[in-house]
């Protein structure tokens, strides 16, 4: 028997009041935990995914949509741009590096992104198996994509049109997997990467109207002619561009460009130049995302306020519970004093009760928070939400714990002081 077990006995002697207080506190803290986790992970993902990208250039439309679609692969692209125009921008002296992107297909909802090997370097990916694509229709899977598709190097699959599930399949040409990436914690994990040429050729065939489209028939004739002429060579067999823009003899389109500036001057001049001087649109990931967070901030602050109010009410409820139980227990306290307990021990006893309540509330709150997030992630088909890992524990959760503890201490102050003040003789004589 010691003070801790005694305080615990008192708490478990009133299971309803104790349970209510713990749950009240836990709910408030759970909301705080969820907010903390979501905010932290989104911000982390956002900065990691946009690292090294100074500017995104694409078709006119919403700049936020452009960023979301090209950097985070969430929203739909704003449209396509002419490769010629894109190449003109890349020749600008303010541009250090350009990574072209072409989108338009998916496999089981995973985006097939046409790009070059610079994109792999941008995220510093490592290969778990195989190597990067080198020919048309060769693909490299992100770690999560490979897991979702359940495919391995050497396997083939066909994509379907559009960037979300449900469109018709491109079954004329199967993609062949040449490599699978190791998990990187970036947007790449959930992509199917290939060359821009692959994206072009897939759509050439579905369209089927362009004169130059290579067909099975065409290929045969090339073989007969022994492939001596440039125009006669089947581009499907040539290696793809691993850097810069792919080569094409036709008028081709891209979806967006990821641009890195050569110098700080570019940040001022380039966006304005593109937005006013061309039919294209330039958007900065940093600017658009801070704008988005500002918009979301209102909602987040509202939720935070609600959570804080809940915690405050929980603190008040703990205070009332302690204070009321103290009134019932004045005689108990006097008896404890008569049995040899000091004033300090009685004060500690009441403190321990308040603090045990809040520690329980904090443990449950943090557990609820993670569990709740896990449920959301589990039952959500939204790609955005599934980016959050509910089982990451942050140092900031220690702050939540400390916050709960502070609430407990404040709520116990007055009751424990009145326990300290209890006059034994008076109490014992009263009955």
């Amino acid at each position: 028997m010691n003070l801790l077990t005694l305080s615990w006995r008192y708490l478990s002697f009133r299971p309803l009041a104790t349970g209510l207080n713990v749950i009240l506190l836990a709910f408030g803290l759970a909301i705080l935990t969820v907010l903390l986790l979501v905010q932290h992970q989104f911000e982390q993902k956002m900065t990691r995914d946009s690292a090294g990208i100074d500017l995104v250039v694409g078709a006119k439309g919403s700049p936020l949509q452009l960023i979301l679609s090209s950097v985070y692969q969430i929203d739909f692209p704003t449209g396509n741009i002419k490769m010629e125009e894109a190449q003109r921008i890349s020749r600008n002296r303010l541009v250090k590096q350009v990574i072209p992107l072409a989108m338009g297909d998916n496999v089981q909802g995973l985006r097939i992104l046409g790009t070059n090997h610079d994109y792999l370097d941008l995220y510093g990916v490592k290969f778990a198996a195989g190597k990067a694509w080198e020919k048309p229709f060769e693909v490299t899977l992100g770690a999560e994509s490979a897991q979702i598709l359940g495919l391995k190097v050497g396997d083939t699959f066909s994509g379907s049109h559009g960037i979300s599930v449900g469109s018709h399949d491109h079954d004329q040409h199967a993609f062949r997997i040449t490599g699978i990436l190791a998990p990187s914690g970036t947007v790449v994990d959930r992509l199917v990467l290939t060359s821009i040429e692959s994206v072009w050729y897939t759509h050439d065939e579905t369209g089927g109207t362009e004169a130059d489209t290579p067909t099975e028939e065409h290929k045969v004739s090339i073989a007969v002619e022994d492939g001596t002429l440039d125009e006669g060579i089947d581009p499907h067999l040539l290696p793809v561009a691993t850097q810069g823009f792919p080569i094409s003899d036709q008028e081709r389109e891209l979806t967006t460009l990821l641009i890195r500036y050569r110098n700080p001057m570019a940040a001022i001049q380039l966006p304005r130049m593109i937005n006013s001087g061309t039919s294209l649109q330039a958007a900065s990931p940093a600017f658009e995302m801070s704008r988005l967070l500002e918009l979301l901030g209102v909602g987040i602050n509202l939720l935070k306020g609600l959570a804080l109010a809940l915690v405050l009410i929980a603190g008040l409820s703990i205070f009332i519970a302690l204070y009321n139980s103290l009134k019932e227990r004045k005689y108990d306290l006097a008896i404890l004093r008569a049995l040899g307990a000091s004033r300090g021990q009685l004060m500690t006893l009441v403190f321990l009760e308040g603090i045990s309540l809040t520690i329980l509330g904090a443990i449950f709150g943090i557990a609820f928070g993670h569990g709740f997030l896990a449920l959301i992630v589990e039952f959500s088909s939204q790609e955005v939400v599934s980016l959050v890992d509910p089982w990451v524990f942050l140092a900031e959760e220690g702050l939540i714990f400390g916050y709960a503890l502070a609430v407990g201490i404040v709520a116990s102050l007055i009751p424990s002081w009145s326990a300290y003040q209890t006059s034994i003789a008076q109490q014992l004589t009263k009955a």
Partner: protein
Amino acid sequence: MLLQSTSLSFSYPGQPSLSFPDFSLAGGEAVLLLGKSGSGKTTFLNLLAGLLHPSQGQVILDGTVLSALQGHRLDLFRGQHIGIVFQKPHLIAALTVKQNLDLALFLSKKKGGTPTDLLQNLGIVGKSAAAVSTLSEGEAQRVSIARALINTPKLILADEPTSSLDDDHAHRVITLLKSEAAKIGAALVIVTHDQRVKSEVSKVLELKSA
């Protein structure tokens, strides 16, 4: 003499001061404290227990001057050397019988567990795991006696221990208090106006009304 009180007086704020007769008690001896309501019986008991601080005079228990002790040292001394039986059992309802007794040991910083022969003597050995709320009045009073005796105190103070008990139980409780006090050589002071008790104890101290 184990217990001695000399020229004790106490006054509640705004009231005339009460003074108490000097008296002394040897170990194993018992005394009945009688007096009308308002004669200061309980105040006297509280002074003897160190629960109240006398405005004059002193209580000496086994060579220790109670009023010279302060704060926690007084609390600890009381826990270790003075056993108090209250008018009502006042056990801690959140604890079992055994835990109530353990608590008394813990608060007085005494080592060792609850002696079973004490529970045996009091006839509550089978109740040690029972919740306090399931005890009868008599059982609860016996547990509270066990709690007062558990630290083998030098002084046992009982404040109207029989007032809520029937004849049979009242007799048993007084006999128990007397025999246990004698066994451990403690001085026993019983405050009462219960006629049934008066025949059981020969030494009597009567307080006059102020």
